[in-house]
């Protein structure tokens, strides 16, 4: 049967379904998010996996940078920052390297298909009491363009997206510039 949009009954029914569906979906999405105004990013753990120091630092700094850019939280605190203790609804983010494969920029540029760098981290978002709220494995890759450290940027962007999907800032508070 051909769908005829000139039939007003069918057309209005379709419109009604569309308009009725979208707000309720959005509300569900919103209510599923945990409200938190601040996050503290802990230093990246290696868990016995040999990860070069520059990768650990790059993962940590990119993660803070991306969380600040994403703007999900009003404050993004660093590991050890004493100001974080005052935040009432603080989320702690601890990421631990699960798998690390260091590729080669030279091999990537020469062969196109080989030499990818990949890093997988277990990211745990927990509340002040230490209860785990969200746990996710996130992988950062660099397959062609860029240096090996670009995999850490890829990871950080994905981790910030995960934070955006699961958390939102507490409404009604003044928004301060993020982070130290």
């Amino acid at each position: 049967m051909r769908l005829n949009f000139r039939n007003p009954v069918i057309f209005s029914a379709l419109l009604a379904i569309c308009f009725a569906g979208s707000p309720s979906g959005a509300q569900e999405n919103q209510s599923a998010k945990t409200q938190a105004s601040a996050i503290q990013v802990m230093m990246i753990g290696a868990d016995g996996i040999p990860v070069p120091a520059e990768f650990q630092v790059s993962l940590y700094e990119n993660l803070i940078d991306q969380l600040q850019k994403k703007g999900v939280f009003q404050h993004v605190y660093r590991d050890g920052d004493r100001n974080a203790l005052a935040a009432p609804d603080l989320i702690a983010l601890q990421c631990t390297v699960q798998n690390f494969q260091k590729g080669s920029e030279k091999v990537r540029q020469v062969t196109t298909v080989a030499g990818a760098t990949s890093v997988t981290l277990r990211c745990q978002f927990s509340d002040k009491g230490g209860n785990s709220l969200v746990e996710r494995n996130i992988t950062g890759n660099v397959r062609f363009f860029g240096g090996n450290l670009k995999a850490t940027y890829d990871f950080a962007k994905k981790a910030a997206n995960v934070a955006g999907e699961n958390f939102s800032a507490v409404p009604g508070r003044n928004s301060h510039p993020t982070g130290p």
Partner: protein
Amino acid sequence: MIASVKAVLIAVTLFFCFAATYGQQARTVTEAVQLIGLPGLKENSKGRLTVINGTLRFIHPQGNADVTASSIQDVVTGTDSQRVIGGTLGTLTLLAPFGSGRVLSLFRTKLDTLTIRYRDADGGLHGVIFTVPLGKAELIKQELIAQGAHTSIPTQADSKTPAADSKEK
């Protein structure tokens, strides 16, 4: 008589100027690129790196960025490499015909990386990564340690352990 006094004064002044200049140059000052980490600085900022008066100083066109040596919890050196022709031009050469761009990718310069972790006044942990010319990172590391910085890898020989080895495969 007055002329000789003037000459002596000028000689003494020049001596102190040269001594001061020589004292400054004795410290390692090297070209560096800050990959990430210094607050307020863009990634891949170019400048010069030195250790002066107990401080690691990154001198860049917008000013200086200082990190106190005593606040540094870890200094680690490593090695890396980069294309001789880099940047946008380097990316464009990849499109060159007959795979000539790929051949250019084989020409690379070796670099040292210098990774530091330090705490700010609030106790917040920061990490900074620099690339410096080959052989310079270890000199800066030694100077930082001499001025109060800490390291998890005390000697150059130990830095070849897998955890710190960052050589390209």
